[in-house]
């Protein structure tokens, strides 16, 4: 994946944005769409993919792209989805109820039903870049263009994705509108926090992916909200991902001010809970535990939900800097963000209820 840089710990964190920008620019340069002409783009696996001039039938095996397509208004062009979005994504069922009736093409072990793909006859297929062999395998055997994309914890990546998918599907204006909205919201947060010295940014540890010791080495919402991800300097433990597995001792060494636990799962499916972490005696000397600053955040949701990550950044800003965001009505803001992206009312209120995130609305 393009976001991984092998030249050292420091380089890994500081180069991510520049690498992203470089490839984003490449995408735009190569992929400037012209009506009626086929376009060539480079995806996140650095594959050059030729896209047909009109994209009417879309198969999305990447939940983040599926959500973007719905937000763009291209939901009716979806001819098939992956198993996660159809079966396990409790939010997507609210956003796009028709999605559950779409054919499911991929299975939990990442195998893909190629015969079904042929039957669905898509013009383009979206996959995630972590499934390294899948894009080439499908494209080679079926001759259908396959684009591997993911934001990988970066706002730049997400915005480029929205723009690219909008351009490829003919929803360029809507994509620009969503992009502008997203950027304005983030800008308003960073302007409110103002320039922050390093010591004014709460040092934050993120316990993601159902484990206390698995953490992302890059997660922009924390930075944008005026915090600091203390794992930012680490390399991912597997190429093509942004996650690593650390030791419990490392958490004590870091002594974070705040611990955030991925909470996008339904409460009954959570393996790591706020209560469990607060009661974990091994972490008893950690500042975040002593001050009881352990909270749920959304985190990845089989990649991101563009509206969700925006609301999450607002929530984190209030959590990190209550003196500046204390009066923020998160429920109202959250519902407005979801309305902007998906055109539905009270989605965030429903989400809070299903995830048991009542702390978010206090």
């Amino acid at each position, binding site marked *: 994946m393009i976001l991984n840089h092998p030249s050292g710990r420091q380089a890994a964190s500081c180069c991510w944005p520049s690498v992203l920008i470089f490839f984003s620019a490449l995408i735009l340069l190569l992929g400037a769409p012209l009506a009626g002409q086929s376009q060539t783009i480079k995806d996140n696996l650095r594959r050059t993919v030729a896209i047909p001039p009109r994209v009417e039938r879309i198969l999305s095996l990447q939940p983040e792209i599926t959500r973007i397509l719905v937000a763009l208004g291209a939901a009716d062009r979806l001819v098939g989805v992956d198993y996660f979005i159809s079966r396990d994504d409790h939010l997507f069922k609210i956003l796009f109820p028709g999605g559950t009736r779409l054919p499911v093409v991929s299975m*939990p072990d990442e195998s893909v039903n190629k015969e079904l793909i042929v039957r669905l006859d898509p013009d383009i297929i979206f996959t995630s870049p972590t499934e390294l062999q899948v894009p080439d395998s499908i494209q080679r055997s079926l001759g259908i263009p396959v684009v591997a994309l993911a934001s990988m914890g970066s706002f730049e990546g997400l915005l480029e994705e929205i723009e690219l998918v909008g351009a490829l599907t003919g929803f360029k204006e809507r994509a620009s509108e969503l992009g502008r909205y997203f950027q304005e919201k983030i800008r308003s947060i960073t302007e409110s926090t103002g320039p922050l010295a390093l010591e004014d940014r709460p040092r934050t540890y993120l316990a993601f992916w159902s484990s206390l010791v698995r953490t992302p080495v890059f997660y922009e919402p924390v930075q944008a909200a005026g915090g600091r991800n203390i794992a930012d300097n*680490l390399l991912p433990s597997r190429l093509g991902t942004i996650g690593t*597995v650390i*030791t419990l001792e490392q958490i004590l060494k870091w002594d974070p001010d705040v611990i955030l636990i991925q909470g996008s799962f339904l409460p009954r499916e959570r393996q790591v809970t706020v209560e469990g972490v607060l009661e974990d005696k091994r972490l008893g*000397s950690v500042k975040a535990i002593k001050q009881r600053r352990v909270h749920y955040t959304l985190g990845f949701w089989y990649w991101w939900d563009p509206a969700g990550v925006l609301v999450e950044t607002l929530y984190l800003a209030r959590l990190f800097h209550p003196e500046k965001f204390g009066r923020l009505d998160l429920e109202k803001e959250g519902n407005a963000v979801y309305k902007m992206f998906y055109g539905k009312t009270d989605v965030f209120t429903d989400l809070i209820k299903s995830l048991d995130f009542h702390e978010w609305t206090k």
Partner: protein
Amino acid sequence: MSGQNNRRAKGLAVFFLILPLVLFLISLSIGSYGISPRGLFKTVLSVVSPALHPDVPAAYRDILLRIRLPRVLLAMAVGAALSVSGASLQALFKNPLVNEYILGISSGAAFGAALSLVFLGRAFPPQVGGFVFAVVAVGAVLLISGKAESHFISLLLTGIIITAFFSALLSLVEFFASPYVLQALFFWLMGSLSLASWKDLYISLPLIAVGLVILYLLRWRLNVLSMSDEEARSLGVNVRREKMLVIAATTLITAAATAIVGIIGWLGFIVPHLVRMMFGADNRRVVPLSAAMGASIMMIADDIIRGLSSFEIPIGIFTSLVGIPIFLVLLKKTRKVWL
């Protein structure tokens, strides 16, 4: 000359028996949180008598007592358990290719843990499900192969079939599990000591200790059981009962270890061979030395993970990286494999 060799072998055996204790102390000083030997010493003293060193940071005590100590003890126990299990089963089956998972323990444990994670959630520790189904898998193997004519060939074949059966069941559970549960399951399957706690030790250590003591007491009988059944019977051994006892004890310790730390491959295969290449095939020596060497290799592998890398690497990778080169060097030197 022979006397000199014997003394050398005895000296080496004593060295390997003491090694785990030395490594235990060294391991307590290794970790990403830098604590000097002096700091460690003061921490130990402050635990014994808090008044002696009241200035010791609370983090030092948490790291030493709640993180490093249970982790190192668990590494020792699991290393010893898997190695002794492998050594005993290789002797029992008279087959050098047998490992500790041959009777379906690993796939049974994996299925049990998956089932627990999917249907019972976090309220029920997956280790319990793992242990129960590891025992169920071995029970199924014994039950199915029990009446076959050539019993031990039948046992091995049934073990392979049961392994395949539980692997298929595991795939089925994975298919229906939510992705979040799968994340937790895959982490467990990788095999790791990263979340070792006293609770894990309370569950696994008594079971492992009981199994190890049984196998240690049976070590000379393993020599007899390595002979043909007729020869063993002529020496007054109740072959069937003794074999079942060995299988029960190996199941107990392997299931207890696997349920806590996941599947750690190769250890139970490599270590007994290392011991036999160095000290011969007498199980009176093989059993205790396998325990000592298995514990040592496991601690060294875990020390490498905790000391050298900034992130946790599945320990099975390092047990193989440490064990296999030694195995190959010895194989080349001795030019023989025990049977």
